[in-house]
């Protein structure tokens, strides 16, 4: 499991909920819990909090910001002793993004990942519906959009350009 289904105790729950309020600095409508970046939050008997996060991409510049904000959110929630740990394995995948997260992305104008991450994407073109008008008549302009996690598309129906959050 990449994250626990529910925290073990009230204290864990309170810490988890505090950490889960942190948003992705590059996509401010998504919390790190929506993204699946927040893997676990636990409080030991001395009150020390361990928050575990995972990077989306190797070079994602948002990660250090997220770590700082998780620490700040936990301090603010009354946990004075906080450790934020970054783990790599298992590798983060867009499959961990919640349905709420996908809906929020679409409402924000970014097409959410289509289908499941996995093999077979090499050399194929993904069919991505336009997040504005819903048309499936879209084309990819560039494999890389404003960040590494997004591709840049254009809708042929409403003529609007949009970002697509790639499956990974």
């Amino acid at each position, binding site marked *: 499991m990449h994250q626990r289904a529910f925290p073990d105790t009230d204290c864990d729950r309170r810490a988890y909920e505090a950490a889960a309020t942190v948003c992705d600095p590059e996509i401010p409508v998504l919390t790190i819990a929506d993204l699946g970046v927040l893997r676990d939050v636990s409080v030991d008997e001395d009150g020390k909090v361990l928050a575990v996060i995972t*990077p989306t*991409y*190797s*070079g*994602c*510049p948002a990660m250090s910001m997220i770590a700082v904000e998780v620490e700040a959110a936990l301090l603010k929630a009354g946990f004075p002793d906080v450790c934020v740990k970054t783990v*790599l*394995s*298992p*590798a*983060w*995948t867009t499959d961990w993004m919640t349905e709420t997260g996908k809906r929020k992305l679409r409402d924000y104008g970014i097409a959410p990942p289509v289908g499941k*991450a996995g093999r077979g*994407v*090499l*050399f194929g073109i993904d069919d991505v519906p336009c997040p504005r008008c819903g048309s499936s008549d879209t084309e990819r*302009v*560039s*494999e*890389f*959009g*404003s*960040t*590494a996690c997004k591709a*840049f598309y254009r809708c042929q129906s409403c003529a609007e350009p949009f970002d697509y959050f*790639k499956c*990974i």
Partner: protein
Amino acid sequence: MRDPVVEYSLRLADNCVILGQRLSEWCGHGPTLEEDIALSNIALDLIGQARMLYAYAAEREGEDRDEDQLAFLRDCREFRNILLVEQPNGDFGRTIMRQLLFSAFMHPFWQAMTGSRDETLAAIAAKAEKEMAYHLRHSAEWVIRLGDGTDESHRRCRNALEELWDYTGELFETDAIENALIGNGVAVDPASLREQWQKTVENVLAQATLTCPADGYMQTGGRQGLHSEHLGHILSEMQFLQRAYPGGTW
């Protein structure tokens, strides 16, 4: 003797950081805004992969060096990257051809490394292979578009391919250190990836109306620290700040 896993991690990290630095030279100079951004994003992925590998090498080395010192305070002869990644960008066609030759190898390489007996290298590989799939798709689509484009774009891609081909032999080289790691399941034997690499490259080149050059003399030396003149110039730019202001941090 140095821990072979440290040496292996440094070789992989150096490949990533040098190519990442090369690609970032395009930032602000890309042929279109989208490509400027794409090359910068690919550079960012590679530098991120290098950071994880340097951090692991530093941790295992246990000599109080950190990832920054490994990247910014080693000299030319200590770098272990292959010569392909330090070759100058040239025009966009040459950059994208170099990217195809490299990512067509690195994608199956990282896939295979997910089975490494070294847990950290396997974890880094699981992250990197997903990124590399997009790098490969990006460069392959461009090589096809340019090779099968105008006479001018075809000619430039063909020249780039012929010049860069001599540097591909090094992708498949191993030495005693690497052979020992292959033997105990930490490293992947690059020879086992050759067929897949060749197939990918030939498939893309065929669609690009380009012909795979015959294997002739192959350049080598990067893993022994014997580099082309270009590496010194990259390092002088990349390492300037840390050399001018020793110990400087953000």
